[in-house]
């Protein structure tokens, strides 16, 4: 058991107690030939120990085989590989294909749920799905309509299914799930529809609901324990969330949970971020709006929160706090610590002690970030842990019907959901980023269940006075809060990165390139243009002794909205023309898996 645990966690978290986590998931994580979770490992490092493809031979990479999913919408997430089987998912209608790698990727079974298409327009921003998880011989799919399904991995037969939400109230799903121990933990979307969002644990065996923890509301709903749960080392007082909303507004509070989950078996805590408060008009919801925009550490068996940290109290910019929490063990202040690193939409890279929730580092990971001067790190200060907001960029202070201009980052954040990777070899994080700014004008809206509840007008454009592109791919030192290197990209980098023991980092671009760069220097070593823009995550696996790298192409998602036709008028003369180019001049809709390998000799 111990050996398995040690192997299991790339970041090197030693296991103190046996029989934690989920045996089958741990076994797959320990075997770099497989990928059982979208996040690669529980720690969300997206690091693979495979090293056959390395910095010196990656230039020889070639396409080994391809597979069309038959769906032409935004393809997020990645296929899984367990044993000789590969499991590929699609956006709505959320088809699952089981491919036998021993038989030339023959389709062994196909599962296509019947879902009411009326869920499509309720989903924010395309019909993406960030993929499956494998545990205990089952494939877990969380459909667009919030149905969680357990499929027999061998046959595709439905073991059980359960409804996690109600799409007619704006509740939908785009996220993957976290199998942990005998449970599966799931989130929900609907922040633009005034949903009071939550995380829920179901029994992995039969789909029975075990607990549900909301992002806002009284303690019996948030599963915060007054006096026991802490924020920045101090106990949270009773029903603290309710005091930060006007009246019953928390019931439409948002704080959705559509991001990624990570898990530390030793501390027995799982981590995720909650999203923006509804509406986007801050004037209509006075208060800190707790616990939207919050990093959560919860116990997977009870849902009880050990600690919370609200990054952006009273959001004024839609800096949805759902991005992944990457767990590493590194030295800070001369002391080995269990760390959690998070690249928030708000443009700050946070490093916390994941045991205590202590805030250690908060620095801008894109120099153009301007809405706050810094996060107050002075423990004696009244605003400790809070961002120090610049009045000029405060849509709250400027008020309703005023267009606040030049705010960086834009609402899609310096980084959106596309997950970063971490290599224990370089101790660097590899972060796909957006380099986009915005004008933001909030105005009054009314709430109707099941209808969008937005309340702001936005226009976005590439960061002014920079390289003209809309993205960067950066290497980040989380201990010192510094950018190590930064590769400019013409479009936002909307692809989950993958770091490998071969000293290579892979990522995809919206034009459709799969790129391999040197993990130390960022030097481009290889690129190949796939049939459509990449918003999926790069994955790797080994079959019959050979390493493969796979990625889904299929442009769409948030990135498919503005970038498709170009964010703004290319003739407006606001900056480099190249940066304003329309993505539609580079790529088209698609739905394809491309798998790469080295030539045979």
């Amino acid at each position, binding site marked *: 058991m111990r050996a398995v645990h040690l192997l299991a966690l790339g970041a090197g978290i030693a296991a103190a107690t046996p029989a934690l986590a989920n045996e089958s998931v741990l076994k797959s994580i320990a075997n770099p030939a497989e990928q059982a979770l979208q996040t690669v490992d529980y720690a969300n490092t997206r690091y693979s120990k495979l090293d056959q493809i390395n910095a010196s031979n990656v230039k020889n990479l070639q396409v080994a085989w391809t597979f069309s999913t038959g769906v032409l919408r935004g393809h997020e997430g990645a296929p899984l590989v367990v044993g000789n089987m590969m499991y590929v998912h699609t956006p709505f209608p959320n088809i699952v294909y089981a491919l036998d790698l021993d038989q030339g990727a023959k389709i062994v079974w196909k599962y296509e749920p019947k879902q009411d298409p009326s869920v499509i327009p309720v989903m924010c921003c395309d019909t993406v799905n960030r993929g499956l998880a494998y545990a205990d011989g089952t494939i877990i799919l969380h459909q667009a309509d919030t149905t969680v399904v357990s499929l027999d991995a061998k046959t595709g037969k439905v073991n059980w299914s359960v409804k996690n939400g109600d799409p007619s109230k704006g509740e939908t799903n785009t996220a993957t799930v976290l199998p942990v121990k005998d449970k599966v933990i799931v989130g929900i979307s609907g922040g633009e529809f005034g949903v009071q969002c939550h995380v829920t644990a179901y029994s992995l065996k039969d789909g029975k609901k075990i607990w549900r923890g909301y992002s806002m509301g009284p303690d019996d709903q948030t599963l915060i324990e007054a006096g026991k749960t802490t924020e920045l080392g101090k106990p949270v007082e009773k029903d603290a969330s309710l005091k930060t909303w006007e009246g019953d507004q928390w019931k439409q509070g948002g704080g959705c949970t559509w991001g990624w989950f990570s898990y530390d078996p030793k501390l027995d805590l799982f981590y995720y971020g909650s999203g923006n408060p509804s509406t986007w008009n801050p004037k209509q919801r006075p208060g800190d709006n707790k616990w939207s925009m919050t990093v959560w550490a919860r116990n997977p068996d009870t849902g009880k929160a050990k600690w919370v940290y609200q990054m952006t109290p009273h959001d004024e910019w839609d800096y949805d706090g759902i991005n992944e929490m990457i767990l590493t063990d590194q030295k800070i202040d001369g002391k080995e610590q269990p760390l959690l690193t998070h690249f928030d939409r708000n443009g700050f890279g946070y490093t916390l002690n994941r045991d205590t929730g202590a805030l250690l580092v908060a620095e801008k990971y894109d120099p153009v970030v301007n809405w706050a001067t810094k996060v107050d790190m002075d423990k004696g200060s009244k605003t400790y842990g809070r961002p120090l907001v610049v009045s000029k960029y405060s849509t709250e202070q400027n008020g309703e019907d005023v267009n606040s201009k030049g705010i960086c980052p834009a609402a899609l954040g310096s980084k959106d959901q596309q997950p970063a990777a971490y290599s224990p070899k370089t101790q660097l994080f590899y972060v796909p980023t957006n380099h986009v700014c915005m004008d933001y004008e909030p105005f009054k809206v*009314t709430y109707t269940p099941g209808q969008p509840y937005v309340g702001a*007008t936005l226009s976005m454009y590439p960061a002014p006075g920079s390289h003209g592109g809309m993205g960067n791919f950066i290497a980040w030192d989380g201990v010192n809060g510094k950018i190590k290197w930064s590769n400019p990209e013409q479009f936002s980098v909307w692809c989950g990165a993958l770091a490998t023991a071969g000293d290579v980092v892979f990522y995809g671009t919206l034009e459709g390139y799969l790129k391999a760069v040197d993990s130390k220097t960022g030097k481009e070593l290889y690129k190949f243009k796939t049939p459509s823009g990449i918003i999926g995550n790069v994955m790797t696996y080994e079959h019959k002794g050979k390493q493969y790298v796979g990625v889904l192409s299929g442009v769409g998602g948030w990135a*498919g909205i503005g970038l*498709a036709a170009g964010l703004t*008028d290319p003739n407006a003369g606001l900056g480099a023309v190249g940066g304003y180019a329309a993505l539609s001049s580079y790529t088209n809709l698609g739905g394809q898996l491309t798998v790469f390998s080295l030539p045979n000799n």
Partner: protein
Amino acid sequence: MSSMKTLALLGLVGAAVLGTVPTATLVFAQDAKTDFANKLDPNAKEIDEPVLKAATAVKDEDGKYLDKDGHPTFRITNDGKKVDWYTYAGYRRYHAECHVCHGPDGMGSTYAPALKDSLKRLSYEEFYGILAGGKQDVNNTANQVMPAFGDNKNVMCYANDLYVYLRARAAGAWGRARPAEKEDKPETYKKAETECLGG
């Protein structure tokens, strides 16, 4: 269902309210014999002459411009720098409610049509019908579904604004920009807006 229909009707009523104007204002507008011709940006590149011509205003009802068929339309002046209130309000509402699918400036996305093109074809009635009732196009290659906004006041109370803005985009009369100069918010508009949102 019934409440949805009722509210959709309310939306139509709201539009009707916006259409009724104190007689005095109307008389004043007609008496003045205002020239309603658009004064567009001389460098505008995407002008669609037939659409622009059909959208020419013939009547001003307290800042709401109507074409020869009585449908709401835009009025752009000062060499393409100044817009009527409805075009301005439509720009704002569009970029809150519509752009997450239909893209910035009505340019379309990877999964929803460019409304700057759709509005070249759609009549006022067709536009209103789709806005209130939604649209479905689901088959093997497409999964395009637009929700019914009939019971969403944030949309239906601004149906005319959205129509006017998108019509200006379709005609090429207004480009990919946020309107800077605008006519004042008309009094009748303010009243109708309050009634529609508050009801």
